[in-house]
């Protein structure tokens, strides 16, 4: 069902710009997952009737100093999802404050300890 393409941070910017040009395309959401040594940030787009595209940026864990480029300047719809990925997994995303739902005293509750 899912056909995820692994891309770089720069590539996801270009993809977001390309998809934004089509009026049929919507950003569904951005999902963060902790895969042990990496944080995976997966972008889900609806690209037409019965079609979706999924792209994943893999961010190696660096002790909480990870930072990636955001796409909310291209898709305003990404704003809440980027903030949530940031506050839940401790990955800084450029151009967003990184806080939306959680109180400042809570740090990255969905991030797991690296084995």
């Amino acid at each position, binding site marked *: 069902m899912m056909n995820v393409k692994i891309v770089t941070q720069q590539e996801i910017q270009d993809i977001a710009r390309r998809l934004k040009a089509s009026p049929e395309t919507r950003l569904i959401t951005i999902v963060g997952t902790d895969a042990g040594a990496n944080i995976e940030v997966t972008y889900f787009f*609806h690209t037409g*009737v019965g079609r979706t595209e999924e792209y994943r940026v893999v961010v190696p864990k660096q002790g909480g100093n990870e930072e990636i480029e955001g796409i909310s300047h291209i898709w305003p*719809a990404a704003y809440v999802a980027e903030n949530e990925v940031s506050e839940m997994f401790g990955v800084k995303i450029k151009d967003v404050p990184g806080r939306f739902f959680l109180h400042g005293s809570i740090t990255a509750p969905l991030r797991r300890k690296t084995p």
Partner: protein
Amino acid sequence: MRSTIQFGPQHPVWIEPLRLKLTMDGEIVKDVELEAGYVHRGLEKKFEWDYNKGAYLSERICGICTQHHSTCYCLAVEGTMKLEITRRAAVIRTIMLELERLHSHLLAIGLTLEAIGFENLFMLCFRNREIVLDVFERTTGNRVLHGINIVGGVTRNIGPEMAKEIMDFCDLIEKRCHDLESMIAHSYTIRERMKGVGVLTKQVALDYSVVGPIARGSGVPFDVRTAAPYLLYNELKLKPIVEEGCDVWARSIVRVRELFQSIDLIRQLVPLLEGLPDELAAKSKTLPEGDAFARVEPPRGELFYFARGKKSKEMDRIKVRTSTYANGPALVPVIKGCHLADVGVITISYDPCIGCFDR
């Protein structure tokens, strides 16, 4: 002179807590800051447990679209297990989803009318909603949290007698909805109060990827039931209901028209139960493994569940993207520039569910 007004977190127009920090210039809102998280319960972390208990938990995210949450959860987890549910279970699930749309839209229409001071119509909407809840009670045993979805199917059947009751109910609710529609659609006062208020243009709706009646009220024909059909929707006659007004009136009229669409869908679905074997649930021989996602169309708009299994009874990750999660940020461009007196009716026309937003 500019001043700041805290709109919420506790405000009479909303049932749940959300905060809007409004920067005012006289009566006009110049800037808005949206703050959520007051009812954040950390449910995505809690989902990392037995996948069989997840449907129970997902129902508790929202008290209105409970059936949609549990159905979407089950579809996502069934995707990780490559499990096909029986046709009878699919029909029952779809009937419940459409019944839920009926009661949710009646609630949303009632609350919007109450926000502009029509308490009598609000009560009328709730009186009509009550008979939908009665049908839920008769079919599932529960009025709000139905608890019939499990991974692999459903737990309660709809027999021939109950099917006839549902068809009779469709006749009754259709008549009542027609009465309601004529009262709303022909009311000069309601139309004048709502028209031109809270305009969300089509381009902004696309930029913010809004969903549900908010998108369809702004001329975006996006409905997951037709854009990515799930369960039995690809077998039903269904066309997204779209209004071009982009305002509070258009969003409300979309909901009113969708009442009749749901009644029509239930009438198409009930005969499909005839002759189907009474198999309600399919058993999986495998455990959840790998990634899958599912999307459904709750009354408020697209709901998305991402599931990752780790070949164990416990799930590795569940992500929930609810309708208000998509629609909430689009409040900001709409409220900017409006009158303070319109903020309440604009926000309630989005039918916000903060329990869904925060999770």
